[in-house]
């Protein structure tokens, strides 16, 4: 019995390990290539680590390219999108979860409908709409588009988090003397922090790595975001892998920082003990 358990545990660990290795290997490769001097990239064959590592690609990317601007643009766009979407989705998700109102069914259907089309179909009409408003080639335009595309899913996400919070809690708060909004702010919101963190993280990453719209709506360097910037390493005749990977590694940093910031709230189980259980 215990033997069997031990074997199972070992197998389980091995499976997890294999999965982690599989998931992390591309990241490792990204890092490896980014520190490999260009001269060694094609001459050393396939090795796990170059015989000589250097930070020359990083130096180049940071000082001789527009990447700092791209990073800044991406950070502004992603953070604004994440904050706006989460705000809107929280309120909308709360309404979906708690209120019965006329046309709810149709609104939900409509939200679902927006999720059904391939984005490619919408690029041309989007461009047509934004262009006369002067919102192409601008970060604001990008934020508006990202918000529009992320709100439906984020709303469903937030709704499911609100659904998980017992309705009795806000009833109790309202009887205790709170208005519905106070109950929302003081009771429901603190309990939804994990959900809000998850939504923030989800939307931030989605906006951070979005390529299609950024590519189509932005043409000048000053509003380029980082994924589009990455493409600039691909020229007609060659690809500068070292610099591209270095930029890629740098691009991971804000996303990592962001998750570090919100991971405290991602911990579930905050609502344990609210009702008998």
């Amino acid at each position, binding site marked *: 019995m215990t033997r069997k358990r031990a074997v199972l545990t070992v197998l389980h660990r091995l499976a997890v390990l294999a999965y982690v290795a599989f998931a992390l290997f591309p990241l490792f490769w990204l890092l490896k290539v980014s520190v490999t001097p260009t001269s060694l990239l094609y001459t050393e064959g396939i090795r796990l680590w170059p015989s000589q590592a250097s930070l020359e690609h990083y130096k180049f990317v940071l000082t001789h390219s527009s990447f700092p601007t791209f990073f800044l643009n991406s950070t502004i766009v992603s953070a604004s999108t994440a904050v706006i979407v989460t705000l809107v989705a929280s309120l909308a998700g709360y309404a979906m979860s708690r209120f019965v109102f006329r046309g709810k069914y149709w609104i939900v259907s409509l939200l679902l409908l927006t999720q059904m089309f391939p984005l490619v179909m919408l690029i041309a009409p989007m461009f047509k709409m934004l262009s006369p408003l002067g919102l192409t080639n601008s970060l604001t335009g990008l934020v508006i588009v990202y918000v529009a595309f992320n709100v439906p899913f984020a709303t469903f996400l937030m709704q499911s988090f609100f659904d998980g919070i*017992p309705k*009795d*809690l806000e*009833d*109790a*708060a*309202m*009887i*205790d*003397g*709170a*208005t519905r909004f*106070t109950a929302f702010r003081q*009771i429901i919101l*603190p*309990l939804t922090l994990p959900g809000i963190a998850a939504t923030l993280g989800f939307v931030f990453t989605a906006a951070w790595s979005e390529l299609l719209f950024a590519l189509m709506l932005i043409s000048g360097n000053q509003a380029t975001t980082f994924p589009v910037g990455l493409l600039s390493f691909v020229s007609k005749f060659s690809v500068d892998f070292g610099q591209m990977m270095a930029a890629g590694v740098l691009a991971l940093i804000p996303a990592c920082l962001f998750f570090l910031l919100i991971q405290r709230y991602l911990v579930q189980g*905050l*609502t*344990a*003990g*609210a*009702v*008998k259980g």
Partner: protein
Amino acid sequence: MASITIEAITKTFGTVPVLHDIDLSIGDGEFVVLVGPSGCGKSTLLRMIAGLEDITAGEIRIDGRRINEVAPKDRDIAMVFQSYALYPHMTVADNMSYSLRLRKTTKERIAEAVNSAAGKLGLDPLLARRPKALSGGQRQRVAMGRAIVRHPKAFLFDEPLSNLDARLREQMRAEIKRLHKAIGATSVYVTHDQIEAMTLADRIVAMHGGIIQQVGNPLDLYDRPANLFVAGFIGSPAMNFVEGHCRAGAIATVDGSTVAVPDGIHLAEGQAVTVGVRPEHVRIVAGPEAGSYAARVDLVEPTGFGTIVHVRLLGEDLKIYTLERGAAEVGQPLHIALDGARLHIFDRETTNRIG
């Protein structure tokens, strides 16, 4: 403290009617218990008093003031939920003081109120804990504490004890009664446990299918149930029902026996009736006597204090509650007499009490 008047209250959810024309007036300081089976609309009525549910038609008044349109926060009513609904991110003390903090009570007054309530409920050592670190019984106490710190006009309880084990429930039941004696606040208490109803209530409101079946003090409901529903609902073990027809001045049952019609009751010949008799009003007699029946013991359920004996009689599984131990054994023949003065006769068509 306050009186609550409920006048012609009707509630429909969409097109589903849940409460029909409820009239009830609850006096200042009175403890009223709403009982009824699951789904009969008790919680809905309570939530309407609290302001958590819209009133479809009718009027609710607190101290004579119409409150249909008043927000829950302005009704000055406290409520204890079946789920306790404690705020999980607040400590016990913060849970209890939340309402006072919303009312901008001073720190000293809050501390005083919380400590006094915690003292009454034995919560002192738990004040700094979060709800998830409490047992079910402790959570229940906190929920009670949260209600009593406020000194509200009225207390509403929605099955506050139904999540506790039997022993704890008994203990809390006594505690609630003691608290009510001490505080004397108007209380409306919902339960489907008829013992809770009997022990706590000044007045019981028995509900069924969204309609009030009977209102009265507990012993009234026990002694003179107004209809078959109340008769069957109040009392444990439940009342025996025997069906029969009036034939030549007596009630003929399906198995061919007869039951004498109690004094002062007039039945039409052929009228379909149901005779109700409580298990404690069925006697085991030593030998055959006038109006006794012979029967054989089917099943014996000792409860410790008393014994429930089941016999097959009058076409029914008749229960007898006796305090005598070893009064019967399975298969044993018995002579049984019904306490004639304590029979309840109901019209089977209307289900209403005849006498």
